[in-house]
């Protein structure tokens, strides 16, 4: 029996290493090459911030970054608001007709192929334009709306699961102590949901920052988001400044995900002493 333990752990350890290598070597490679002085990709020409400088001096990269951040901010905020409402409805009103259908439907955007989501949204916008003359031209507003639709689903599910685990008697206790339902929401429900909402906000922010497919469908001329810019540049040939841009993007997303995870974990520990 004593030999089985270490043996198995060696096997598991190599699995782990292989898995992580598979996941992160490409990204690491990209990060390393972003510091490559040489213009030719496979040739290492020494360490340099050259491509980062080039990046900061190119106006179209700046424009795309600003657009992406704007969309991500608006998307995260609006999606958190509506997603929280949907999550509340799913978790709290346990008996309403079509609840199961509604629960299933809210998670559909999570499994729907992005191409389908993008295409259907594009069709929606075109139809809307014919019917009510809006949106005049597709661009930031249509991309934002498209992002909100799928981000909302993620947030609704985060909120719903938090509420499902939470103690309903907390809200009853507040009611019992004289708080009217609206007050209970403000004093008890929302403060308890705050970590979930923050995590959801960050998740929505990074989802929006990452999205290429849906944005490509619903974007119009002159509205190029960062992933779209990277993709179009790559098609014209690999240029090292894109590595630098992608590295920065990875950094931003990693920070967002780490903070979201940290908030959720810390809060869980607080709740279960």
């Amino acid at each position: 029996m004593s030999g089985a333990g270490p043996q198995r752990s060696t096997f598991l350890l190599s699995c782990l290493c292989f898995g992580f290598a598979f996941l992160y070597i490409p990204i690491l490679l990209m990060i390393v090459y972003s510091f490559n002085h040489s213009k030719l990709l496979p040739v290492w020409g020494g360490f340099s911030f050259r491509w980062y400088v080039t990046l900061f001096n190119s106006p179209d990269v700046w424009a795309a970054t600003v657009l992406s951040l704007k969309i991500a901010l608006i998307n995260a905020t609006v999606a958190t608001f509506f997603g929280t409402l949907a999550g509340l409805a799913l978790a709290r009103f346990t008996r309403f007709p079509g609840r199961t259908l509604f629960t299933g439907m809210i998670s559909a955007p999570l499994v729907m192929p992005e191409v389908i989501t993008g295409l259907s949204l594009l069709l929606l916008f075109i139809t809307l334009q014919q019917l009510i003359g809006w949106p005049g031209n597709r661009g930031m507003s249509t991309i934002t709306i498209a992002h909100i639709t799928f981000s909302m689903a993620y947030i609704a599910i985060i909120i719903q699961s938090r509420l499902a685990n939470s103690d309903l008697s907390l809200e009853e206790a507040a009611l019992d102590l004289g708080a009217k339902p609206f007050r209970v929401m403000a004093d008890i429900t929302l403060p308890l949901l705050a970590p979930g909402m923050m995590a959801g906000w960050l998740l929505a922010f990074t989802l929006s920052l990452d999205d290429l497919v849906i944005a490509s469908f619903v974007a119009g001329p002159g509205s190029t988001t960062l992933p779209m810019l990277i993709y179009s540049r790559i098609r014209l040939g690999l240029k090292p400044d894109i590595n630098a841009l992608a590295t920065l993007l990875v950094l931003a997303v990693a920070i967002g995900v780490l903070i979201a995870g940290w908030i959720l974990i810390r809060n869980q520990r607080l709740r279960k002493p």
Partner: protein
Amino acid sequence: MTEQPFIKVRGLTRTFGNFTAVDNIDLDINRGELFVLLGGSGCGKTTLLRMLAGFETPDAGSIEIDGADMAQTPPYSRPVNMMFQSYALFPHMSVEKNVAYGLKRDGVDRAQIKLRVGEMLQMVEMQDFAKRKPHQLSGGQRQRVALARSLIKKPKVLLLDEPLGALDKRLREQTQFELMELQDKLGTTFVVVTHDQEEAMTLATRIAVMEGGRFMQIGTPAEVYETPATKFVANFVGSVNMIDGVVTSCQPGLVDVKTKQGAVTLQAQSRDEHAVGSEVSIAVRPEKIIIQKTRPETEPETPNVLHGTVKELAYLGRLSTLRVETDAGFIVEVTSPNTTRHSDGKHPFEWDDEVYISFPAASAVVLIA
């Protein structure tokens, strides 16, 4: 002038789908009582409590508290507060803020809140923990905070849902007495829900034993224990020997019953009339049975003498529980106090000892259902 009941429940019913949790209940609770609703899980006791608090809407019936009809009153306007089984302390607020919450919602001014919260924390001996968050407290401390929070608004009625359920045995016994002292001091009407019959007996001025959404019996702890109304109550509150038989004669106050097993005649006192030939059970508490090695001198008051052998023996320290198989065939459980010390590890009664057990007719109760 007769005093009106403080809480008056009439025809209260609540169903969940096909399940009737509370079934057409009438209940009167007096001012200042410590009333305990006792029953197993799913008996409807918690649903009844939640209807008093206003969390459940009755399907039928009425609830009056201190003369005011509560039908249309939402929980936040009822003169009632509740202590939850999980305590339901707000995890994002300190002890102080938890306790102050009810006063804050009532718009009491700050200085007054500070004063009253201070007093209340003093009363439950939690003044040193005012700034702590709930997750930094032990179970017993949380229980005190929850109690303080539910009492701060000086409710007319305090509802307690399994108030001691989450505490360990030693702490529970100590807290029981504290709770009774507190209730005595404040004079608030307490309605307690519990499944623990010992807790109910200790706390209650009156107990209502519930089963299947109805009351089986309402009475003082002694009434419920000594004169159980039904077999269910006798079994649920304490342990009991239930011997089935048929009535052979019924003189005023005394009933003779021939047991089904062994056809022995046993005698029990009863205020009710029982028709000869009707099927009944004789219920005797194990501690009311005398166990001896020699045959007791039969006196007229103790006709119930049975011979048997000790089949099982459990030494519990201050008393022993013995299961005696009588010659008639049925098994009788007897508890015998260990009044003398036996340092050699021997018990006054051992396995397979031949014994005589007896009980006076007054110790037995005749139960029909």
